[in-house]
């Protein structure tokens, strides 16, 4: 049924399109528009120009020499998405999808956000392109990320608090979907991660794969070889899939996704979907989920709002089951250690999300030892998290 675009709706058994019927037409239309755009040199040229002039790409690949020395292991390379405009990788996807929305002739953009980084990125590109922007955000996340809420408002977006369910990212996605069902004719849902119904996981992956493509080229230029390991944090998993994708066919590159263990995967307060979950269907896609034995979705926790999600992009589920990538988890305290280590050794304050990846990278660096190279996806900067970190360290600001 539907359009023949040559875009596969599935990653092995994962992915698909489990949606209310009202949205079926919009997904087919989007799939077709994306398929045309990805084959259109003019689309790529416009995107590349904005990536250069507006986002500041390519972002640097930075060799963290002091951190490497202190760790006493493999060399640590940071792919600096924290230096992209708005301070995180989210802008890559927001820009690509906003250009698509323009092609679709949809003047209104809705988005969900957890940590607020995707909301800020979306509000930013909407301001730049003159599109109306409505961002759904869990009221618990609004409390944790008040600075980003203010940024979005200054950028002209309407921020709608979501009080249902756990009041976090998952519920913001539900509410954005409800808006989309209602306003589908005028509205594009600019989903923030490589999750959701087909074609979103593929499309978001493609827009984020610029991270891995650049990093691959930069590793060859700066290290003269591919990395031995690539490591990134995984919530929905867009920065990780963007980093991993151009290395998937390089069998010698180990791919490691780091999930949030919160207060521990043996507790009920974590977000380690691939490590501790099992497959199901949520938010339109078949993927690993944190769910109870009745198939009800479990509440999640992480110190980082951006990883606080009970699902994960379906392509990660596929990379896990095919064993092409490994998935591990790092808890709140360990993430704080990663955060402090990078901040003190390199003068780079990471967001709490990639702090999970940094902590694990230090472990792997010691394990595989000197002479090897580890590529770390530094997905965002930590300004937004200073209140959370201060609170966790018992400091009153």
């Amino acid at each position, binding site marked *: 049924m539907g359009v023949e675009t040559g875009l596969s709706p599935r990653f092995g058994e994962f992915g698909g399109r489990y949606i209310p*019927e009202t*949205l079926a037409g919009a997904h087919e239309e989007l799939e077709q528009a994306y398929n045309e755009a990805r084959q259109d040199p003019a689309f790529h040229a416009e995107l590349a120009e904005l990536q250069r002039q507006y986002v500041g790409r390519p972002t640097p690949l930075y060799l963290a020499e002091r951190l490497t020395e202190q760790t006493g292991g493999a060399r640590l390379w940071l792919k600096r998405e924290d230096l992209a405009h708005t301070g995180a990788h989210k802008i890559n996807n927001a820009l690509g999808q906003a250009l698509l929305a323009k092609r679709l002739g949809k003047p209104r953009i809705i988005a969900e956000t957890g940590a607020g980084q995707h909301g800020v990125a979306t509000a930013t590109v909407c301001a730049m392109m003159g599109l109306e922007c409505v961002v759904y955000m869990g009221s618990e996340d609004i409390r944790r990320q008040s600075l980003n809420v203010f940024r979005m408002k200054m950028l002209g977006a309407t921020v709608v608090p979501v009080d249902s369910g756990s009041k976090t990212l998952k519920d913001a996605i539900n509410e954005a979907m409800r808006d989309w069902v209602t306003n589908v004719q005028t509205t594009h849902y600019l989903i923030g991660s490589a999750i959701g119904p087909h074609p979103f996981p593929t499309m978001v992956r493609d827009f984020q794969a610029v991270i891995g493509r650049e990093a691959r080229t930069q590793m060859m230029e700066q290290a003269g070889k591919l990395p031995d390991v690539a490591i990134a944090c995984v919530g929905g998993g867009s920065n990780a899939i963007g980093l991993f994708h151009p290395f998937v066919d390089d069998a010698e590159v180990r791919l490691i996704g780091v999930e949030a263990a919160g207060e521990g995967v043996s507790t009920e307060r974590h977000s380690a979907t691939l490590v501790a979950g099992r497959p199901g269907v949520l938010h339109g896609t078949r993927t690993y989920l944190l769910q109870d034995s009745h198939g009800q979705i479990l509440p999640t926790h992480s110190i980082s709002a951006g990883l606080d999600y009970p699902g994960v992009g379906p392509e990660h589920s596929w990379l896990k089951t095919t064993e092409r990538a490994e998935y591990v988890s790092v808890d709140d305290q360990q993430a704080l250690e990663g955060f402090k280590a990078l901040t003190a050794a390199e003068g780079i304050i990471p967001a709490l999300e990639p702090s999970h990846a940094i902590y694990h990278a230090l472990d792997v660096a010691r394990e595989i030892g000197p002479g090897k190279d580890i590529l770390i996806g530094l997905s965002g900067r930590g300004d937004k998290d200073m209140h959370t970190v201060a609170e966790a360290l018992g400091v009153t600001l």
Partner: protein
Amino acid sequence: MSQRLRETFAQARETGRTLFVPYVTAGYPRREDTVEVLLAMESGGGDILELGMPFTDPQADGATIQHANHVAIQQGVYLEDCLAMVAQAREQGLRAPVLLMGYYNPILAMGEERFVRLAREAGADGFIIVDLPPEEASDFLSACREHDMSFVPLVAPTTADERLAVIAEAADAFLYCVSVTGTTGTRTELPPGLGGFLGRVRKVTGLPLALGFGISTRAHVEQAGEVADAAIVGSAIIAAIDSGDVDGCAERVRAYVAEVSGHEHAGRLRTGRDE
């Protein structure tokens, strides 16, 4: 398809009346109310009953039914409980066909074939699964066929003609026509253009059509009857439950269904089906 559904539609076709299809979320307002509410919906004039299976993330539902889902989940009302409620209602004399409505993940967790089999054993007649379009439903459809249960697909005003034809092929009892682009919930008026939408659906199928979303008054039901074979009412039932003491909720549902359906089955539960 289920025998009960076939007979219900055949009778309606003979008498030419609009079937009334009320919905309630299992476990709302309390676990122990559901069987009584189902019986009350029938005695008030409900021809086919929808029992909502609670889910933590009811994406296509508006605030009213979201809240009902939340309350039910808080009480630990899961699929097994929904099936037990149907079985209990049958024991107490419920005659109307029952459709189980919900989301896909709890069904996957139970196992699709197992769920369909147990639903049939409990006395249910079919399924409406909001986030399971026919192209993703091949396993579920096989299970339905194997156990003579009906799969009721949804179609929306945004569904293109070619797609309507494919969806209609997955149906065996009727199609659920979503009246508006939006979530469940009451609205003051039904949207314009319903005739055109249902006309498009009639072109691809001879099956009966039920209209749902936004229907809450007798006038809406009469309006629905002009274009559809059945009218589905959900959020307004929940509202009737909420409009007074918890203990009187079943009687209020009965009275509301009687008023809005226009065909109360007076004394039906005591004397059996009188048609």
